[in-house]
């Protein structure tokens, strides 16, 4: 690999970011369901930072608590009469009863296009995408293909190394015999259903 050529993932992510910005910008004033797919919280946060810096449209953010039961009413109660230029929704993957949430979202999908006149970016991971296909196929069929952000091997290795370092530090600090690893905590930036694949 030469320095002159950026790794393929970076090109892929640039293209994806560009597509996401276009998708948001072009649907100003209209409801549009946009699926942004990323398996790693760390990478997602990075992408969102870049997105906010580059997108000419103000993005309203909404974080779903784990206890969220329904999507539409949550948007409604959070936003009230507010009509943002675009809405980004995070946290679907950590909703406890996500299956029910998706099923009911599919049933009330009409409310979205009737009452929301702005693009809605739904951040999902591979697991949620599968669930959308199975549990909310009608709702999903309103969206273009998902816009996927991938992690490069380099970044993945870095993340594993960081976790390993943190683990070693934890062991050293705890002293022998009193060590307890909280894998999910040390892997914070990358925690999601795919975490086990990394090990």
């Amino acid at each position, binding site marked *: 690999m030469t320095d002159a050529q950026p790794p393929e993932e970076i090109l892929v992510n640039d293209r994806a970011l560009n*597509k996401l910005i*276009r*998708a948001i910008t*072009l*649907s100003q004033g*209209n*409801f*549009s*369901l946009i699926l942004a797919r990323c398996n790693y919280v760390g990478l997602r946060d990075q992408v969102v930072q870049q997105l906010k810096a580059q997108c000419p449209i103000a993005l309203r953010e909404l974080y779903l608590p784990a206890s969220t039961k329904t999507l539409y009413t949550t948007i409604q109660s959070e936003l009230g009469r507010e009509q943002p230029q675009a809405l980004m929704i995070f946290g679907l993957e950590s909703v406890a009863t996500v299956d029910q949430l998706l*099923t*009911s979202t*599919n*049933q*009330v999908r*009409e*409310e*979205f*296009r*009737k009452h929301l006149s702005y693009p809605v970016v739904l951040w999902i991971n*591979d697991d949620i*995408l*599968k669930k959308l*296909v*199975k549990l909310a*196929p*009608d709702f999903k*069929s*309103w*969206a*273009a*293909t*998902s*816009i*996927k952000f991938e992690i490069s091997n380099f970044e993945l290795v870095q993340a594993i190394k960081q976790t390993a370092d943190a683990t070693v530090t934890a062991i050293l600090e705890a002293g022998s015999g009193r060590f307890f690893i909280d894998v999910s905590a040390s892997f914070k930036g990358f925690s999601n259903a795919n975490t086990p694949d990394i090990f």
Partner: protein
Amino acid sequence: MFRQTAQIPMLLDAQKFFNACNPSKTLKVEQPEDRQYYVDFSTVRGGNVIQRLQRTIALQPNVATCQLFTGHIGCGKSTELFRLKADLEQQKFHVVYFESSADLDMADVDISDILLAITRQVSASLEQVNVRLKPGYFIQLFGEIADFLQTPIEFSGEAGFSLPMGIGKVTAKTKDSPKLRSQLRQYLEPRTSSILEAINTEVLGKATELLKAKGYAGLVVIVDNLDRVDSSPKTTGRSQPEYLFIDRGEQLRKLNCHVVYTIPLVLIFSNELSTLTNRFGVKPTVLPMVKVKAREGTDHDEGMKLMRQMVMSRAFPHLSAAQRLDQITDVFESTATLDRLCRVSGGHVRNLLVLLYSCLQEADLPVQQTCLEMVIREYRDDLISAISNEEWTMLHQILKNQDNVKGEEEYQTLLRSMFLFEYRDDEGRWFDINPAIAESKKFRQGL
């Protein structure tokens, strides 16, 4: 000076095209703008489905009719129902079209909910043409309900008594409270027959009479979105669609005007389909995919022609069908690119829009072949990630044996997830794999 200014409508408005390709947009044929985008697919869908529904009503205006309509996700059900509404209105019918999902909680629907929703929608729509109903039965019933819910219900607005307002108030009170709702149902359930009778005489019968006096041919109610009722089994062992349309179908068909219900497609694959047909005295009408290829696998010329029009009308709504074809290269790299899009859509209209919309999100016009191919790959990956090994086996089996999809489970997993599409021709129906999935390595390996 020498330029032809008359050519202005020929210009392609990229933003408008983008909006028109949004897969979440339903065409409302009554709106002139949307009418330009509407393509009549009846010749390539196995019979003119909408015409059949329409004729059943128009040929017997003075008899109450009840019809069932269903179809696959995104194949254009709502669009066709809007067309039915427009057609019937032209024939002087008063048509009440409504999306039942706005009035009902689709996870938990009972007969009384549907009856009240219809009553509310019909009476509200009549108020708009200055027909106000004062049904004595309902005035009394809601008085009792108010006592029972221990809350006063205001029936009178600025213009005096209003039935839709009263029903709206009751439904609003019970919509968010499962406990109140169940209490209300327990109260209404033993009264279903008398409620039905009151709806028929005091609301629908009276309305028809008043409408006819105003020169209308009759009253038609189109209940859209009732296909969305949750199909998971209830504690009783019956699913909601089975309960509503089979167990209680007798009551749903008893309304005293023309009614078209959308029903969940799953019922078509239920082994109780014949019971359903008996209950309603009519077979459900299914809207299949557009045939872009024939059974034998060759292009279906007429289907392809109409799919091309569906795309090009969104780019050049003002042009004639022939003129639009001259402009293909404004939108696509070549005609081959457009044809590839039409073929890979499998004749599923929303599917086509999903692919096209993705291309438009990706880059400016014209859509390049490489861009389309990339989008097809992404679309395929989205779907394939959700197919389990057992489902692959099921898919292969059905295609190999040229089987029909049988049973609810196969329907739920294969058709509802859009892995498999259904087509019809003169010889009947057949199933084929979503063309985008057919191109995957995984599928070809399993052949």
